[in-house]
């Protein structure tokens, strides 16, 4: 009898413990650990990093510019993410008993026509405060990542970006990144940010390598988007740094004004500097198309090149016929025929379902695949476990090839493909793989 009572008491005790666990799981109780985290997270009301569940919904957020001229490209990324979700999680979108819910957020505003700091902050906060959110995919722009990372870092939510190339997000690079980067983005000192695209301290050398080998460039004119856009300045710095290593003379460097009515004065300045190549560091949203038109109209016929920021339909449209003369762009990755079978197959299926992909569509598919793979490997609804599983991604057989994340959260793929505008489209030219 006593034994029976003891068993009953033990069962009751275990039941109470279990109930307490369940309460914690749905976020109604706050553990001492969570309180500590909450102190570290002034922008986030409740920290769910330690929340664990074995069933229910796992939410994956994406935050990309879906308003403005980036929309066309961003839609191809969300389509690709959706396809990866269907491919990995099956038609019922379930992994390890968890229903995977994909929420696509827009981080651009109509007013700015591109990503917006307040909107990005709101998106990151929404994901951080959502107990079901386990992975954040994006943002598209490096500047937006600088806003999102600290918020999500405090919440312990992993981020995987398909397209951020600014080195300072993961690594300090002399002459490119600012003092305190990247540590100032990670208040908890635990890294939660990953990217499947090669950094600009690789892209700059890839561009210079192409310029040297293809055009024997000796004189380079650099133009970058306004300094408030971190991407353009960083990439231009990277190109300048690499060019100086090879004795390429920088015959001028200018920063364009946002939404200028024209760039004819700058075009004349460029022409008078007699460069062998003009490089633009920036995105399509900061009018490289208009600059290119004015440069060509001034009679400058030397190659005009940019990075991945204008390797998209928005630039193709804004360049118009002026883009048809020696206009080049680099982007992380390899052309379709050099992709693994999985990548080539994905692009075929994408075309059949959605039409023409862009050069970042594959990266959209890849980030979702990595996230789902990590959720599968973690086996539980736990941000920390999923974060660790993402960090442990090694020799991943993805649509981009076989690759791994390094200790900083960067991919070990450093290939760049160079494209040239032909008949209104980006036509593949060659690879440019710098050695460090």
């Amino acid at each position: 009898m006593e034994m029976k009572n003891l068993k009953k008491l033990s069962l009751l005790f275990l039941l109470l413990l279990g109930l307490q666990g369940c309460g914690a799981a749905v976020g109604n109780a706050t553990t001492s650990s969570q309180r500590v985290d909450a102190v570290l997270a002034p922008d986030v009301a409740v920290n769910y990093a330690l929340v664990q569940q074995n069933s229910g919904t796992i939410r994956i957020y994406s935050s990309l510019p879906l308003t403005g001229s980036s929309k066309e490209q961003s839609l191809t990324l969300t389509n690709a993410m959706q396809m990866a979700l269907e491919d990995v999680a099956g038609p019922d979108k379930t992994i390890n008993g968890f229903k995977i819910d994909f929420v696509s957020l827009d981080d651009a505003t109509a007013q700015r026509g591109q990503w917006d700091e307040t909107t990005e902050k709101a998106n990151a906060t929404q994901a951080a405060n959502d107990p079901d959110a386990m992975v954040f995919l994006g943002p598209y722009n490096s500047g937006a990542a600088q806003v999102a990372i600290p918020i999500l870092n405090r919440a312990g939510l992993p981020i995987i970006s398909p397209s951020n190339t600014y080195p300072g997000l993961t690594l300090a690079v002399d002459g490119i990144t600012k003092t305190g980067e990247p540590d100032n983005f990670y208040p908890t000192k635990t890294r939660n940010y990953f990217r499947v695209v090669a950094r600009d301290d690789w892209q700059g050398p890839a561009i210079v390598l192409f310029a040297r080998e293809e055009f024997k460039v000796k004189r380079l004119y650099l133009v970058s988007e306004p300094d408030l856009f971190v991407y353009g300045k960083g990439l231009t710095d990277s190109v300048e740094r690499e060019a100086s290593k090879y004795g390429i003379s920088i015959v001028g460097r200018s920063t364009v004004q946002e939404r200028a009515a024209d760039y004819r004065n700058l075009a004349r300045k460029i022409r008078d500097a007699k460069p062998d190549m003009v490089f633009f560091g920036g995105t399509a949203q900061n009018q490289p198309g208009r600059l290119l038109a004015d440069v060509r109209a001034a009679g400058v016929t030397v190659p005009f090149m940019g990075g991945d920021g204008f390797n998209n339909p928005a630039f193709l449209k804004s360049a118009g016929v002026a883009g048809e003369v020696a206009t080049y762009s680099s982007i992380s990755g390899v052309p379709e025929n050099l992709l693994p079978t999985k990548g080539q197959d994905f692009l075929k299926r994408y075309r059949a379902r959605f039409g023409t992909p862009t050069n970042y569509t594959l990266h959209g598919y890849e980030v979702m695949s990595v996230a789902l793979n990590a959720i599968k490997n973690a086996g539980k609804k736990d941000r920390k476990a999923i974060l660790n599983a993402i960090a442990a991604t090694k020799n991943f057989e993805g649509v981009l090839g076989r690759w791994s994340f390094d200790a900083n959260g960067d991919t070990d793929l450093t290939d760049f493909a160079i494209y040239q505008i032909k008949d209104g489209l980006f036509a593949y030219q060659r690879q440019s793989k710098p050695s460090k």
Partner: protein
Amino acid sequence: MAVNVSQVPGGAASLHLAQKRNRTLRRQILWFMGACAALAVVAFLAVISATTARISTFNEIASIAVPSINATNDATQLLAGEVENTGEYILADQGKATSVAPGALAPATNKQVILTKIEEQRAAFDLALQRGYNALSNYSNDIKPDASKALLYISSRYGRLQDALAQARALTDKGDLTTAIQAFLNGQNDNYEPIFASLYFLRSIHQSRLEEAESSAVYSAELQQYLAAAATVLFGATLLVTNLWLTFRVKRVFVPLLNLALVIVLIYSAFLWSVLSNSRRDLTQVVATYNRTALLSDSLTYITDASADQVQWVISGKQLVGQTGLGTGVRDEIYNQDLKTRLELLLSLRTKDGTLLVDPAQLQDCPASATSRTNYNFEGNIAQLCRELPASYSSNNLNQFIKAYRDWLNMQNRFSPLVISGKIDDALTLRSGDGAKAYAFMADSLNKERDLNIQDYRKRSQQGTDGLSFATQLAWIIYPAALALAAAGLLVWRREF
């Protein structure tokens, strides 16, 4: 003790010889000075002619570039207008109010009115495009892509846009509204911007050539102006020195012919300096005038685009289950964003945090005084136009635009909530009433300002060319004549002694 040279043996002969030598020397100096003066006059005239040739080159380039800038401006507006009118066509088919025919026309009549406009716009666009591109063959071959490739590119895109718009109208006629709207929006999204950008490129070529020619001509005009100023000072000083020398050294107060020559040249040099100064100012201003017409034209295109964006935003509504009718459901915000971008590019206020704000209550008039205009602290084309308006220009037309722009923005601020709340008919009636009225005033004020600029260009160009031509031709008569008069004066004077 004084010595009389005549008493010195051989002294008279020696004195005579010395006087003879002096006379020979004086004659040689006079001849040398005369030759120098003649050479200086010839050099002066040669420089004037050479630099005038550069100014003539500017006029030649301007005669190509200016009509071509006008043509590309027209083509851009016609393109924007054609896209907008296809949107209006879809609205008309549905019996909605349109900005083309705000009155209560029957759908079929309304559509026919719009179609006629579209046909006119197409024909005018083709003509404007040909004019803009054909002119490229007059320039050197350093422009890439060349005219034929560029024309092929733009024609193919325009063809695609045409096909999409024509398909949209045909589908509308058949009653297949959803497919019609899709064809219209896709065709516009894919092809409008590449054509717009290519027209911008084309115009930029003409503007660049005009600016380069202006730069070269202004340099020449400056040189001419300095030469004329130097000639004025030189002749004035010569006049003064000659008379002083004659008065004090030779005790001869006045040499009529010499002084007449100097006075003529002095007056002419002052006249030439004035003509060249005006020419230089006109040169700078005619190019500025044409850059202003480009800004005015862009502004017209932006308001046309903004009006088209309203239509596209309304008709982009995806049909929801259980909902029928035009513009119901979820609309594509890209058109709203496009509209806002156009308005920011037109006239907006930059806030302290750097964002652009289009608030009708905060937009101020362009000041009347030129000094205050330079401090007009707004963003966009209209603000730039206000700041760059010459002192002699009135800001009336710009202020008429700003007033109408405020009215249009107020209309837009009422239009959007009506559309969002599903009151599409009310929204479109508002647009075709207050909106169309404000739009007409905006377009009218910009056209008036553009016409003023074009007239001003023609006037300045004509005045500058006529004045310069007359003054430089006169130089070939005045300077040799003055030189001849001076020589005659000196000879007469020499004979008197």
